[in-house]
């Protein structure tokens, strides 16, 4: 009998969730966890009502309010939200979860926060699971070895009604990270460097498994940052095989199994890694020792430059389309070809979002703020810098460690949790032509406010930019 070829981590999760296969080539996959929020669900619940369909598994569904909540005055409650449309959306979610019996962390609840911070923090995100949410950065949960990706609102309705999703299998891609990073370089830089290399369409049709010694060395938080950005490389999802760090992170979390169930779960979870002889459709190796602190210069996450680099000349791009794109991006960003990226003055700094708002991110930013204070420096005059923790629990933990005091002393604002200026659906947004050093994930035109100019970077780099008043090399503070 010929030997069966090895399976990838993605293959294993897929196989473990296969409910049925339709002759038209679609598979029906079981969904273990469905995360929902206010923006992409109202139409799904209306659809259920119209068709008199119940939610099949409210117990496998968890709701938060994150995208358009204000980041101050949350204790006043949803009815006090000033923006009438946002208020209606938040109230609608409140009614829907009540009518359909779904667990909900409303605005102001200490457990509430950005959906992709809350899932892992509660221990709802576990290895080997399938996880979906009407939000493209659901890929974050892949850091636990869970197959996690964004879905549209029709699919949200489908999952609510059936606890399954119709899917076509993606291809397997593996990116192996080797080497040791130089100080000041971390997961965000890895992700930006990778997207710079493969482009925003580079992972299209693929699930990317991140592997190799540099991934094993990353914290679970760092892995979440990396998986979060998979979608910016066009991938369906990102995955990291679970290991001792994953299990240690999960142990004791509110929804993690306890006692004998923990041991049982652990045995089950350990099955989820790629076999040594698994074959990937595409492989890539990245040497992290060659990566410098990285930022974006343009309006696509693939427009990256090392911190000691120059804004590129559009003429240097290969195709005419790319040249035109680069010219348009430079025009929008208000940058000149050949200028040092560190010469770009910033007016705003945003430390937050599902990419970088966990406790480890805040610690890294606070470390730079503290170094600045030690050097007699603060946030540069004319710069408004906001720190927005990913959840109420992250905020609480940071305050227990005194990080809020460091930020406040250094001239940063310390806000309440939410998506905030990652997409500017709430009042936190850029004015036209304002330049922002941001730890979020999208530098699209208008993403943080119409006409706003976003430069993506790590939390430590964003803190350094706040102090210097321009894009800066974090290594000056190390």
């Amino acid at each position: 009998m010929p030997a069966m070829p090895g399976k990838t981590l993605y293959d294993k999760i897929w196989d473990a969730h296969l409910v049925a296969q339709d002759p038209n080539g679609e598979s029906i996959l079981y969904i273990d966890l469905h995360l929902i929020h206010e923006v992409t669900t109202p139409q799904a619940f209306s659809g259920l009502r119209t068709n008199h369909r119940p939610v099949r598994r409210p117990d496998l569904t968890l709701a938060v309010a994150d995208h358009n909540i204000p980041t101050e005055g949350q204790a006043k409650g949803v009815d006090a939200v000033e923006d009438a449309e946002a208020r209606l959306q938040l109230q609608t979610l409140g009614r829907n979860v009540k009518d359909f019996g779904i667990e909900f962390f409303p605005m102001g609840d200490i457990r509430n926060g950005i959906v992709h911070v809350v899932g892992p923090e509660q221990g709802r995100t576990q290895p080997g699971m399938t996880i979906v949410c009407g939000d493209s950065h659901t890929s974050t949960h892949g850091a636990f070895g869970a197959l996690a990706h964004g879905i549209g609102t029709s699919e949200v309705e489908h999952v609510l009604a059936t606890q399954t999703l119709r899917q076509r299998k993606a291809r397997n891609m593996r990116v192996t990270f080797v080497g040791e990073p130089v100080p000041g370089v971390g997961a965000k830089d890895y992700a930006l460097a990778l997207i710079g290399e493969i482009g925003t369409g580079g992972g299209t049709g693929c699930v990317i498994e991140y592997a190799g010694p540099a991934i094993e060395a990353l914290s679970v938080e760092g892995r979440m940052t990396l998986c979060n950005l998979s979608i910016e490389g066009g991938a369906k999802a990102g995955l990291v095989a679970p290991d001792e760090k994953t299990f240690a992170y999960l142990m004791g979390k509110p929804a993690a199994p306890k006692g004998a169930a923990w041991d049982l779960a652990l045995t089950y979870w350990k099955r989820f890694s790629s076999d040594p002889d698994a074959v990937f459709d595409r492989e890539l190796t990245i040497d992290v020792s060659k990566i410098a602190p990285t930022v974006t210069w343009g309006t696509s996450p693939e427009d990256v430059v090392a911190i000691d680099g120059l804004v590129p000349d559009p003429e240097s791009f290969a195709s005419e389309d790319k040249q035109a794109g680069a010219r348009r991006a430079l025009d929008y960003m208000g940058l000149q070809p050949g200028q040092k990226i560190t010469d770009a003055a910033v007016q705003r700094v945003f430390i937050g979002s599902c990419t970088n708002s966990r406790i480890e991110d805040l610690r890294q930013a606070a470390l730079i703020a503290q170094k600045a204070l030690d050097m007699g420096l603060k946030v540069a005059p004319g710069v408004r810098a906001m720190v927005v923790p990913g959840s109420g629990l992250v905020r609480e933990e940071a305050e227990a460690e005194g990080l809020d005091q460091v930020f406040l002393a250094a001239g940063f604002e310390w806000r309440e949790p939410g998506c905030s200026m990652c997409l500017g659906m709430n009042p936190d947004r850029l004015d036209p032509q304002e330049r922002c050093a941001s730890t979020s994930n999208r530098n699209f035109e208008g993403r943080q406010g119409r006409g706003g100019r976003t430069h993506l970077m790590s939390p430590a780099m964003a803190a350094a930019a706040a102090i210097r008043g321009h894009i800066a090399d974090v290594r000056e503070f190390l």
Partner: protein
Amino acid sequence: MRKFDHLQGVAAPLPAANIDTDQIIPKQFLKTVEREGLGKGLFYDFRFDLEGHEKPDFVLNQPAYKGARILIAGDNFGCGSSREHAPWALDDFGLRCVVSTSFADIFYNNCFQNGLLPAIVSSEDLHALMGEAKGGNHVFAVDLDAQTISAPSGKTVRFAIDAGRKEKLLKGLDAIGETLEHAPEIDRFEQKRRQTQPWAAA
């Protein structure tokens, strides 16, 4: 779901690559609890200046392209967020078919949920169609069953789509209804899941 079989109409060229969903429908339009009416926000920042006046040079504002039904766009159309508001806005604006060399995964899926056709063609064919669409006020014809797009010159190109998706679009099948026919299999799966992963059942 609405069917899609044939479509005839003006095609508008939008040659930029990587048109993301933030551009297709900016965030301020996502605060709705309805599916309808999003056409007003479609490509908002392209169509209107900061004072809210129409930008006359944007393709969909030009008289020749008023009432366009087809959009011919650059590579990797629809990247970015999962917002289904993007196809809803296209549809509400009257655009039922987007032609490109490639689409981002979630956007691509979302189109099929709403009876919109994302048609994948080669870069060569895209170039040819784009060239003809730039002429303006020309009626193109899309035939899903034959998987063809015919340009006014008579040039006909084939587009790619997998058989399953094509059939669903042609018939306008309701995905949830179909899946619910598999309820016994879902029940069996859940039973097994309770046994093998007792901790996972809340």
